[in-house]
């Protein structure tokens, strides 16, 4: 499969501010994201996750190296719009990304910006709202919706631009468990049914476990990269970086420390229960 995003020798330094020297976030980062994949990016605060995400649609431009999105160089200022149509971004606080005071008007904001004709905007808005399950709320005022609903409206606003890839920067950090589940289901569905590439930046290990590939960033470098099972079974490495594995893996790992011979690839409570059951049987 071809790569939708490829990061080549990326270097990035935050510009100097008020005499304070800028910080170097990346020195030489290489990374590719396959078209149609579901990738989770993990890391502690300040490891450069959000900075990396902002490189994916020309919000930040590399200080060195290149970022290509669908073959387009993101630093090519003439093609910024093409990059942004290809990669949509969803941020942490849904309140700060909703522009209009009616749900459907907000979803229409993106297509309106790129000059889509009125009937086509209508079609895209309805389609996007149905995909995130917010169609019945199309005439509501956003401030009366719950956090999870607002975040789904924000996702609809992004997919109305029909991007090939969406980047979600901690989309569930401000949501309650129910809102989190709804948002994760929506994202998962978009990836599975529409083939939209999903890059999910998160702090929640159980969310990362739902991805098909997990990348762990540490101090601007890739510390681990692989399937959730491969990455999360390296529990000691995760601990050293200040991260944790999903609860089920942590449990198996803790039991292993006590001398029980359990596998470390149980990512869900069900798999964990099965592993314990199998172990008890032997």
């Amino acid at each position, binding site marked *: 499969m071809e790569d939708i995003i490829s990061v080549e020798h990326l270097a990035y330094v935050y510009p100097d501010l008020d005499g304070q020297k800028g910080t170097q976030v990346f020195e030489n980062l290489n990374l590719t994201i396959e078209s149609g994949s579901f990738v989770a990016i993990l890391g502690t605060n300040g490891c450069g996750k959000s900075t990396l995400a902002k490189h994916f649609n020309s919000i930040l431009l590399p200080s060195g190296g290149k970022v290509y999105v669908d073959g387009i160089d993101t630093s090519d200022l003439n093609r910024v719009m093409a990059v942004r149509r290809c990669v949509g971004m969803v941020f942490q606080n849904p309140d700060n990304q909703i522009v209009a005071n*009616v749900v459907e008007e907000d979803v229409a904001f993106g297509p309106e910006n790129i000059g889509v004709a009125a009937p086509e905007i209508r079609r895209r808005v309805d389609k996007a709202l149905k995909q995130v399950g917010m169609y019945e709320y199309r005439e509501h005022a956003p401030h009366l919706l719950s956090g999870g609903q607002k975040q789904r409206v924000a996702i609809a606003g992004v997919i109305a631009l029909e991007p090939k890839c969406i980047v979600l920067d901690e989309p569930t950090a401000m949501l309650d468990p129910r809102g989190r589940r709804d948002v994760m289901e929506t994202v998962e569905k978009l990836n599975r049914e529409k083939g939209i590439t999903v890059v999910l930046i998160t702090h929640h290990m159980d969310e990362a476990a739902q991805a098909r590939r997990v990348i762990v960033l540490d101090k601007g470098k890739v510390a681990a990269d692989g399937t959730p099972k491969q990455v999360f079974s390296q529990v000691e490495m995760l601990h050293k970086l200040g991260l944790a594995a999903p609860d089920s893996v942590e449990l198996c790992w803790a039991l292993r420390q006590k001398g029980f011979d359990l596998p470390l690839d149980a990512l869900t409570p069900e798999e964990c229960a099965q592993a314990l059951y199998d172990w008890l049987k032997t």
Partner: protein
Amino acid sequence: MLKDITLGQYFPGTSVIHRLDPRTKLLGVILYIVALFLAKSWISYGVVLAFLILAISVSKIPPKSIVSGMKPLVVILIFTGVLNLFYSDGGVVLVKIWKLTITSEGLTRAIFMTSRILMLISGTFLLTYTTSPIALTDGLESLLGPLKKLHVPVHELSMMMCIALRFIPTLIEETDKIMNAQKARGADFENGSIIDRAKALIPVLVPLFISAFRRADELATAMECRCYQGGEGRTKMKLLRYGRNDFYAFGGLTALIAVVAVLAGFGL
């Protein structure tokens, strides 16, 4: 307590007036005001008043809410009335106390001017009561469109208005939260002199401003991510279109102005 603030005083509804194009309503109010100021006699006032009552009854806005909307303006009304009452000469002297005289002319003028203001305000209320803020902004943007040629940033202005309206409830909620947080730490907003209370608001306003700037920054990034690049080449999902009712409305208003103007021509 802050939740009670209503904005734009919009009453959602489905009446003919609600469904008129916002541009029609904006221009309509201007035409109505022209008619009102052309009216010079009680007869033409009666015509304008009849038109107003007809419009209000069609809009199905409860007259009570229009009356209650007048409350903050009572001072201005009384001021106008009293001023006209005492400062007009001519006519028969009705009452004379010390140096103040009330003449019949003064009384008529007082009633005339206050009812003009009352009718003026009721007319504009009809606009804000039947038009959602977002429709108003759209209408304004479209009406002011020609000014773009004179480099007036019409789109930017309407975008700003739209975002301001969108964030008012969010910021009210936030203010409530900050006030509660300060109250929990012993701040007192209800007691003391006006100066004390104003001082107590400073620790609310500072975090509110900081958060508003942070929000603005995030919103700007989110808008950029959604391909926003100003009004150039932008389309609209909901196009404003004049319908049959709009022509009737314009017809009615033109007739109103014509009748009032003819009456004025006859010195009435």
